[in-house]
């Protein structure tokens, strides 16, 4: 029989070895796979993306900016640029970098693959918002054009990625979101978030943590050099101007989106804020909730106009059961957060609830029914 101490030591050593090899992200195996992925082609494609992005922003990409974005030494970048020039992807006259037509096409293909993949992750999988960008960064290099087109078809040819960036179509055409930074918005103008910059990751993670997403209605309250105070979907947010500049907004067209404006008119609160016994009318489902979960909500009959009553709370505190169209449905708090409702006065007849709560108000029809024959 082996000495127990030795056995334990060998066992612990083995466990450490396995962890060192396969630990997600930091293990030797994932690292080795990453360095193998970082080939010349990947670097070229990332460089194309970077130059295109800076051109779009009206800034001049440089060797330094490329070295920073690709995280490789500057002489490596110089060598890379020489190669790319030889391939006819860009021209560099006197340090000015410009994409050629072929270079722009290649860059747009990569951007299309990246944004489509983000759209896919957001709509069809359970990955967190913080994971989307990193995964798309990897996959954009592996998808051939035919597969990108198939993905676009499967997603119903989406026009925007989940951050609000336009997705170029297969011929590379797209319309920029045309928003201005939140910090440039005059106070008290109703506006809508059209884009949230997903780089750098640290900043994006903070914006996600604030619960901000494209499609949100916003209104600036106060802008000082220290902070930006604004309303977003009825909640007050305070951000540093540096962060707020990463949010792009367009002033809300009051007329074209008339229907939307009417919908947003009643003070909407999340369903989770409803207290037991209170009744509310559904205003809408947050745009952040997409894919299978959104469909599930609609299957359950959570639609604008549906009357919802909070009825039971689990003894452990979390799921709350709501009466929705005569059925008792339990929803977790994070889910109820995604449903916007307008509170209604409680039924006045009897607080005991003798009168049943009916889904939508069929009262007019009921009144009509006897008179119709």
């Amino acid at each position, binding site marked *: 029989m082996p000495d*127990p101490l030795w056995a334990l030591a060998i066992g612990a050593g083995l466990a450490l070895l396995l962890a060192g090899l396969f630990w997600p992200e930091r293990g030797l195996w994932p690292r080795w796979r990453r360095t193998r992925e970082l080939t010349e082609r990947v670097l070229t494609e990332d460089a194309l993306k970077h130059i295109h992005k800076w051109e779009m922003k009206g800034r001049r990409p440089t060797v330094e900016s490329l070295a920073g974005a690709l995280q490789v030494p500057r002489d490596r970048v110089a060598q890379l640029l020489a190669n790319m020039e030889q391939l006819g992807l860009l021209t560099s006259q006197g340090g000015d970098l410009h994409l050629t037509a072929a270079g722009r096409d290649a860059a747009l293909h990569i951007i299309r693959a990246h944004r489509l993949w983000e759209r896919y992750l957001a709509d069809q*999988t359970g990955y967190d918002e913080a994971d989307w960008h990193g995964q798309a960064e990897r996959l954009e290099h592996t998808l051939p054009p035919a597969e990108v087109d198939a993905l676009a078809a499967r997603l119903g040819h989406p026009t925007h990625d989940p951050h609000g960036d336009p997705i170029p179509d297969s011929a590379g055409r797209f319309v920029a979101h045309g928003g201005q930074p939140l910090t440039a918005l005059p106070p008290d103008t109703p506006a809508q978030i059209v884009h949230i910059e997903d780089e750098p990751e640290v900043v994006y993670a903070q914006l996600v943590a604030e619960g901000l997403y494209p499609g949100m209605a916003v209104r600036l309250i106060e802008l000082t050099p220290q902070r930006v105070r604004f309303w977003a979907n009825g909640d007050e947010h305070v951000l540093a101007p540096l962060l707020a500049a990463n949010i792009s907004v367009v002033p809300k067209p009051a007329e074209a989106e008339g229907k939307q404006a009417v919908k947003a008119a009643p003070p909407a609160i999340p369903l989770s804020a409803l207290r037991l016994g209170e009744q509310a009318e559904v205003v809408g489902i947050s745009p952040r909730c997409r894919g299978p979960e959104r469909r599930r909500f609609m299957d359950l009959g959570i639609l604008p106009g549906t009357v919802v009553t909070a009825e039971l709370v689990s003894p*452990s505190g979390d799921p709350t059961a709501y009466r929705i169209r005569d059925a008792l449905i339990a929803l977790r708090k994070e889910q109820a957060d995604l449903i916007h409702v307008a509170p209604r006065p409680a039924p006045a007849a009897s607080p005991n609830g003798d009168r049943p709560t009916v889904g939508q108000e069929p009262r007019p029809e009921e009144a009509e029914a006897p008179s119709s024959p």
Partner: protein
Amino acid sequence: MSQTAQLTGPLSTGGPAARPSQPAVTPDQILATARSLRWQVGSDYHQALMEAIYTEAARIADRAVTRPGEKPRFDLDRTIDRLVTSRVWGFPLMILLFTLVFWITISGANIPSQLLSNLLIGVVYPWLHRLADLIGLPWWLTGLLIDGVYLSTAWVVSVMLPPMAIFFPLFTLLEDFGYLPRVAFNLDNLFKKAGAHGKQALSLMMGFGCNAAGVVSTRIIDSPRERLIAILTNNFALCNGRWPLQILIATLFLGGLVAAPWAGLIAALSVVGVAVLGVLFSFAASWALSRTVLRGQPSTFSLELPPYRPPRVLQTIYTSLIDRTIIILGRAVMFAVPAGAVIWLTANVHVGGASIAEHLVRLLDPIGLLIGLNSVILVAYIVAIPANEIVIPTILMLTVLVTGMSDVGAGAGVLFELENTEDLMRVFQASGWTLLTAVNLMLFSLLHNPCSTTIYTIYKETGSRKWAAVGALLPLAIGFVVTFLVAQVWRLVAG
């Protein structure tokens, strides 16, 4: 053509494609218009369209559906709901009900199990032997068919059928009444912290009856990620087939540690302790799975709390017997037949002077000792993979075979059980069992690969070999690590 124009009409006010009277419109122009319109309508029109369809459906339904009677039992439902989900009574009621269900199952299954065993093994088995003698079958065919195939199948049926036939109908009655969704509702917060669905509480409890049935019952979870978690961690619920081993070992070894009046209590507590440990492992595994391999699976939570209904007793008993008991039993028998043959063959086919079983035992000896078990137990778990019910008889048979005891046992490859605890202890001590072996056997019985019926069911339910492999190897790996650690620490402390 005109339809296209009508569709785009309201969107593009006066665009070139909106005039159907102009014949000179080429397909390219229409496509170009469509493309530019796509950017105008924005990214959410698919969803807006879908929402409009749903809203329209709801409007039509509200107008067409009348609700006569206005629910006379509405108040009763509410009263029951307030009681079973109340802060004070919710959990005690739940524990009481499930203790009752398990108590009825365990105590009620003893008698029919004994009767079945007496019939299938006490009466039919010798009768089959006489029949074989009568028609003059060669000894190896008699051994393979009757001692191997028939005996292990009969064993599985007599141990497995009665508890399932009691547990499943009871459980289905609770389900039919509408109580089980309330249990999921009460426990959801706990499961949420492990990244799982509240309904996993139900599949886990079903797993205490039978893991295969537990895996099937995860169909009630409609969220893909949470369903996979429930499937992969169901094996941590100590199933019916493993209770007898736990009770036997706990009574013999752990109960024997204390004075006689306390023996029963200690044994019972240690078995319950193992079951609770299983639930804890199930939570831990759920937590780890939801944060690693299953991170990207889509997840949608919703839990419907249906109105209470008086249970339809006869129908429930019938369907739960047909749907659950018979199907599971059928699968178990399907696997027990070849396993019986394999068990008999390993004990009777000799290679180089020793049976295959003896070779295997010698081969696995170092591993068995390292993890505080012995190689006989490991071999038993390998050949008895079809059903946990036959692990104990297989261990007994193999021990007698390897140690060459002559006064107990029924011959090479023939499963048997001993009523007499002194004989049992004698067999165990002959192969060098200690308290550590007993404790680790109880742990390994909880933490090892599920039986082949369950593995096959996981494969059927997930449609994936990968998940079936994960479901089989994950608990086995945990079992090896836990028993290894316990063995080393035990030896260090005990000197």
